[in-house]
């Protein structure tokens, strides 16, 4: 298919994941955090799809990689929905979506 080899592909997924983690660590805005997390989920989903298409070994799975990807996307969406609900509540109560300003619970 494409010219991507497995190492290259893994590097792509890893880069996405690294980006995601970087985002989680450096962003303070809840919305941006949600986006960063979604990027990470997509890295995993990419992997599933790629390995489904170009298996390293002949395992037989009850779920195909594509199926996993689809289900995962669905679940990620649910998760984001819950996350947005929490953002709304947080914003309503504290007037901010900056996570670093919510530190009533500590030590």
């Amino acid at each position, binding site marked *: 298919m494409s010219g991507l080899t497995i190492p290259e592909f893994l590097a792509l*997924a890893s880069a996405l994941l690294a980006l995601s983690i970087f985002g989680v660590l450096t962003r303070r805005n809840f919305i941006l955090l949600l986006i960063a997390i979604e990027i990470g989920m997509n890295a995993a989903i*990419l992997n599933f799809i790629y390995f489904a298409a170009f298996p390293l070994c002949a395992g037989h799975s009850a*779920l195909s990689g594509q199926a996993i990807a689809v289900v995962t996307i669905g679940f990620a969406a649910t998760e984001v929905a819950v996350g947005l*609900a929490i953002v709304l509540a947080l914003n309503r109560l504290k007037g901010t979506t900056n996570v670093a300003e919510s530190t*009533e619970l500590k030590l």
Partner: protein
Amino acid sequence: MVDFVALLSTFLPEVVIAAAALLVFLLDVLGVRRTEVTAGVSAAASLLALLFVVADLGIAPFSAVATLPSGLLDSSPASASTSLYAFTSLGLVFQMIFLSATFLVSLASASRPSAEPGAPTFFGLLLLASVGMLFVAVAADLIFLLLAIEITSVSTYLLVAYRRRDRRTIEAAMKFYIIGALSTVLSFFGASLLFGAFGTTNLYAIALAPATPSAALVLVGYAFLLAGLAFKVTVVPFHAWAVDVYDGAPDDVSAFLAGGTKKIGLFAFFLVFLGPVLLARWATSFSPFGLGPFNAHPVFQLVLGALAVLTMTFGNLLALWQKEIKRMLAYSSISQAGYMLIGIAIGTSPAIAGATLQIFAHVLMKTGAFLVVGAVAALGIGPLVDDWRGLGQERPYLGVAFALMLLGLAGIPLTVGFVSKFVLFSAAIQAEGYFVWLAVAGVLNSAASVFYYARVLKAMFFERSDRPAAPSNAGRLGANGLGYGRAAAIAIIAVVVVLLGIYPGPLLSVMQSAAQHFVLLGP
């Protein structure tokens, strides 16, 4: 073609709980908002489900109502390796544990005022989370497992936040959510790498797989998976969220989180490390990244052992001078997770049996402890250790109950907490070699932990209170201000804690045979 009814009966406990969840939401919509009713539905459903699980386990007087088709329990690994789910005795034991937690929390929450906003939601979410937990216990496929965990997670995010007007609970929910979501990313990423390495996500298939073409993918995959699941188990350093969340969440939710959902992570560990640790597979040489050949099995044990020691030690150290009871309990919960990890690091059937009992003991004691905290808070007494001075003298039954929970957590004999630690550490010593040092670390930690538990006992029994006498809402609720449900739940836990401390034999035998079946699943 799948017989739908047969499938339903196979999953009868899950179905009961899910139906109860729907019923609760339905009642809410219909305007039936009396807490007693919803709590009753929730408690009855979990008790019913518990009965089915116990029956399925084949325990004597109940086995008559077993619904699990014969041959499905502890069936051959080959059949499990092609399925999304598999019924193992150990899984059923864990279902038993989870349902106990659900039942106890439901019972205790019956005392919650009906007027409180979101009360029906609370029970609905509780039951939904329980469904996820039950599925975790029967998972055979990594993706199935992760999705089941996800069901629980999402339910509990909302459970923490169900009191929408409370700043602290929302902050807790926010932290819980962010770290949880990050962990989900890590888990799924790890799962994807394993999928790449083995071509399957079935855990039994992975455990039985012949040599893999890519050792590097396997190790990195497991590392991500470990990090992702460690969030649920509150392994140090993946633990930081737990303290704030247990602290900020409503007391009953904390009870459920610490006593219930945390334990799905441990069962997930059992399943995930079935291949690398429990079956003692992969003693063959690994040499990823040109590191030179090494034996992967002991390396996994080393990682888990190191995390176990780290977790129990840090948990205890952090709890030492904690002034707030809830946070102290949270840290204690972290350190207890360390002991449970020992069982997985060793991976022998005695160790798993010990860890399972430890998990059950912790469910009882930690749930009980948080329920008492809730009761005390309901009496209008503050959250600090200092606020609890003289409590044991003013309210001896509450005091004695809490003392029992703490003594159990500390591992003092005649409580189930002692028996579980005893069996667990015995198993570590029985495994010989450097596992003895895990036992030593665990034992020293549990002995040191006595310090902070005894500090609370000291405040409760040996010191006098300086707060005004009458609690604000005494008499508003039955059972001397506690509410009958809560009082009953605490009493049940206290009795069971002592009963199992004195006579743990039968339960231990069940756990031991389950653990044996579990590790013998491999060829």
